């Protein structure tokens, strides 16, 4: 049997493929299944951009059973569940996804500085995150955010991630690459990293190794893993 940690796109796809190959799986997530794609479904532009993967994931959700539990170590797998601590003597596949690097800046630390990940979630939850927004960094996800935010706010861009922030109760201006931007909100992308707070040891798959916003690569990583390990 294989224990899959995380029921986002990668974990669910992996579970589905393994099941098709007759491998027994148990999938755990400390939240409801769906991971960040579930968040993306709530913003039209994201829903459209990631549509193919969202559909794929939803079909996997209907086929795979996901258990609520927090995996705190692997080898052996130890899961905290509402029923108690469960120890499972099987190998674990870590599909816990990626997380944006913290958007730290020079200057002051006023409210109004977000990573894209936090900004996307807040938008999905129905908050307006600012009026004049500066997007800093380089990635396709920022282009997508620009379209979403551009509907209601003034949006500016800079490629630089070395930024100085001014402001006390709220961001007032941001200096990047010698240029000053007047804005109340900064969305700063410093890249993504594996989300593995318990430092679980096991095979990493999906966005846990791809570490990005490009789900074609995420999909490929899962498929490659399956083909390598379970080629028929």
């Amino acid at each position, binding site marked *: 049997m294989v224990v899959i940690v995380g029921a986002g796109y990668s974990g669910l796809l992996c579970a589905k493929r393994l099941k098709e190959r007759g491998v027994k799986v148990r999938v755990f997530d*400390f*939240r409801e299944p769906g991971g960040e794609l579930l968040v993306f479904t709530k913003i039209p532009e994201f829903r459209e951009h990631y549509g193919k993967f969202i559909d794929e994931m939803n079909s996997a959700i209907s086929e795979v059973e996901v258990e*609520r539990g*927090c995996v*705190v170590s692997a080898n052996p797998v130890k899961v*905290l*569940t*509402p*029923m*108690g*601590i469960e120890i499972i003597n099987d190998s674990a596949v870590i599909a816990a996804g990626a*997380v*944006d*690097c*913290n*958007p*730290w800046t*020079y*200057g*002051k*630390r*006023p*409210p*109004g*500085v*977000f*990573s894209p*990940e*936090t900004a996307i*979630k*807040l938008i999905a*939850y129905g*908050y307006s995150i600012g009026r004049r927004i500066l997007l800093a960094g380089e990635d396709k996800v920022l282009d997508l955010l620009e379209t979403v935010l551009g509907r209601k706010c003034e949006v500016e861009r800079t490629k630089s991630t*070395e930024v*100085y922030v*001014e402001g*006390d*109760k*709220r961001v007032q201006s941001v200096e990047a690459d010698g240029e000053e931007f007047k804005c109340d909100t900064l969305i700063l992308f410093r890249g993504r*990293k594996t*989300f593995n*707070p*318990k430092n679980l040891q096991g095979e990493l798959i999906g966005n846990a190794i791809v570490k990005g916003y490009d789900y074609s690569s995420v999909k490929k990583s899962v498929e490659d893993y399956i083909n390598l390990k379970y080629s028929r």
Partner: protein
Amino acid sequence: MNDIAIIGAGVTGSFIAKELSKYDLKVLVLERKLAPGLEQTKACSGIIHPFQLPFKLLRSRLCLEGNRMMDAEAEELGFQFKRVGLITVAKNPITFLAIPLIILYLRMHGVRAEALSKKKLLEMEPNISEKVYGGVFIPSAGVVNPVEMTAKACMFAKLNGVEFVYGCEVVGIENRGDHFVLKTKKGDFKAKVVINCAGIYADEIAKMVGYEMKIIPGKGTHIVFADRGFTNHLVVAIPLKPNKRTKGGGALIGFDGKPLWGPNLVDVESKEDTSVKREEIEGIIAKFSPLFRKTPKEIIAVYAGLRSIAGSDFVINEPIERFINVAGIQSPGLTAAPAIAKMVLEMVSRHFELRRKQSLVRPVRASKNEESICSSLSEDEIVCLCNMVTKKQILEVAEQFKSFDAVKQITWAGMDCEKCKADIMKLLGDRILKDREEEEIAWS
């Protein structure tokens, strides 16, 4: 009429409030911010220092005493405190030769210290550079979460009858002979005795009753790295010549084990200037990385705080009858807080006949062990996986303190990565945005 009004709920004011709550006194705390400890206290390094040089200073004596009291305080109030120990490293032959003298000197003042051979040192801290000569281990150094420590003192005080008013800046004081009237936007408050714990603004409070003093802000910047376990002790270098104004910072760790490098000391003009310069970050890394084989992975935050410096020592006095200054509480004020509170209790006893309360209410302690997490999972959920903080714990703190910043600092939720920040904001947005006070919730 209150017996005592405390201005400022940093660690100093909060520990005084906690101590006074054990007696039959009517005590009031007025704090400008929406929660305790959000100014100097929040921005400190969280180190429970083993000592402060030179030993003749008041702050040195209170540091030693506070350090000794800390286990009992942590137990009574229920905050996290670990004596992780401090390693001070000899980087060159001169400081290496000084080790026996250092140990003797510390022991003379009651500080336990032992010599570490290079081999032992590298066993204790494998990331330390091969180039060191040896070191001294001082086991009494510890780490806390400063805002949690402060908030727990406030919770204890509140449970035992102290009244707290947040979002309440004192803008004027009238001396009416047998009592004072404190002016705020939330109305006037009367008290027989006033204790000034306003941190960096304590000089302005003192001025309101006609006492002149000057507090100079001394900025200290820190870097937080993601690499938990990079070192397991606080690591500093033995200075060739001690600096009178600062202990010089170090490759420290937070109470959660993340590397915390700094602080430096930069004089700044303004009491609001907590901005971090790139040169400072580069300077801190350049200063401490030679102690190690490599630098820790990934910066996740940088922050600066302002020390309230009034000369070389704390200023704890009663310049005007019934007006007590607890000012200039620079480093190691966090460490000294329990001892300062005891000292102030003594001063207060001149004005009141102190009667200890028959019984005290103790705060309930949340357990973080795995069994208790499991049993909470059926009706609760984990929000922050990095620090294992549940929804219920977050909402409990949010009930008491209506500030995102306070919830983050006290529970430590969202202090490692970006995964749950939006979820915490949503949880709080739904509950506290509606009745928030004038200050904007720190969405950062």
